[in-house]
């Protein structure tokens, strides 16, 4: 199993990463090395093992439905690149 350069380009685009051709090629070989490792894992016989969704053997970690005040708005907006009228400012989004 290996990943093509086009697939790397696609994954980069989905992750909003702008990458030059040389970087893409370098990343392709790194990703292929990672995939190779998964192939090693795939070779292990797991007959009789149930798939586990999590490494930690805990389940049903829930909280009661009781509201708690979070952050003051000034604090929430403090790291925003831009803010106006209590809103996070972003470039114009056209929905239709």
């Amino acid at each position: 199993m290996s990943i093509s350069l086009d697939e790397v380009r696609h994954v980069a685009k989905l992750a909003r990463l702008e990458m030059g051709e040389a970087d893409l090629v370098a990343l392709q070989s790194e990703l292929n090395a990672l995939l190779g490792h998964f192939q090693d894992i795939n070779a292990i016989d797991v007959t009789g093992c149930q798939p586990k969704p999590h490494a930690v053997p805990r389940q049903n970690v829930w909280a009661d439905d009781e509201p708690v005040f979070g952050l003051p708005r000034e604090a929430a907006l403090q790291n925003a690149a831009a803010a106006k009228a209590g809103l996070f400012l972003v470039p114009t989004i056209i929905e239709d």
Partner: protein
Amino acid sequence: MANYVLSVGMEVHAELLTESKMFCRCQVAFGGEPNSRVCPVCLGLPGALPVPNKHAIELVMKTALALNCTIARDSVFHRKNYFYPDLPKGYQISQYGETNPIGYHGWIDIPTEGGKTKRIKIARVHLEEDTGKLMHLPGGGSGVDLNRAGVPLMEIVTAFPPDIESPEEAKEYGERLRQLLVYLGVCDGKMEEGSMRAEPNPSVRPEGSETYGVKTELKNLGSFRSVFGGVEFERNRQIAVLEEGGEVYQETRGWNEDTQASYVMRVKESENDYRYFPCPDLMPMHFDDAMIERVRATIGELPIAKWQRYQSEFGLSEYDAGVLTAERPWAEFFEACVREGADPKAACNWMNSDFARLLNETGQSVVAHEGRTLSRVTPKHIAELTTLIANGTINGKIGKQVFGDMFESGHMPKAIVEAAGLTQVSDTGQVDTWAAEVCAENPDVIEKYRNGQTNVIGFLVGQLMKKSQGRANPQLAQEAIRKALGE
């Protein structure tokens, strides 16, 4: 032109009626100052860890059970990855897979023409989180309000192949689902506030064709009337495209309420490449019998069961039972009247006529909510009024007067009747006296009667009732007039 068959899949999103958000404990409310109900979790700040809201999980399970779903024994949350400014984490926590959602493989029956029902299969009922809100700012740029980000959101998806085959069925499905969710107390069902959103996926295919046509996805539908309009428009549009030899594209289309037409929406690139994977921040869920049965016990009687029971147990018409069961508080009020000893048919008539009208005129309700004040009329009032009429203490006409009075004052009907001396007069001597007086006062009418105009009896009875200030027993009044006329 070939005949075409319409198929409609439906996705319905419903915000759950919890106090706090899905993965953090920020308060859930409508409106308010932007970004006033946010915290590191729903802002997507690095290092913040989500913890699921137990009540939200129970509400989804309750809905899934009411929709006859199988409940997953093991269920996990997934990350659905995409970038959009209303989604601070860069992914939405949702549930993926056929048998992983909390509920799957269910159904709901909807009424169709001629008192029949049709079964609409449900593929899944899953739990996710809502996104924030984007608003266009005057002078350019968009603003993001994250108060809604992370609000518990339930998604209900119909099964494929779709059972819905007409715009009417699409609307009926939406309305029945809304009624059920409101009944269960899991969602307020307010489409105008966006707490319930419906997205139909209509497609058409030539009659007899085995393969389904390409579907379009309709968004921005603000009501079930729009669901009807949107599906009807898309059906006609798609048929026209195919008839002209064209091709229907799989695309997202918006609905314009003003022009009653759908339009192509800008679709984000590679929209369907969501790369779902189990969210490592969240522990898996396991639902045992004890939990499932505990949630099942909270469901109560569903609207369609009530509707059937009111007909069989109380002998009400399909229509009357439908009006009484449309909303839960109204049905509960009716049942309380019956418990207080009211005749079901009489209680139903008072509720669906005078009471409903007065409540609407005054902006009151049988439960105080949504700015409506609580009516002074209780089930005890209705029960006492129907008893007074049933045992002949007052007649129906006086009953209407008493109803108006008790609606206004909140006094009990018996007290009103006693204080105003409205008791029905069933003393034949008194009624006969009134009949004689009426005849003496209307010689011209009596003349008409003698000349064969027997329909004037109604007028004379009316005069007698007026003379008695409405208190005469109408049956006796009728008899007394006939007797006075020598019949």
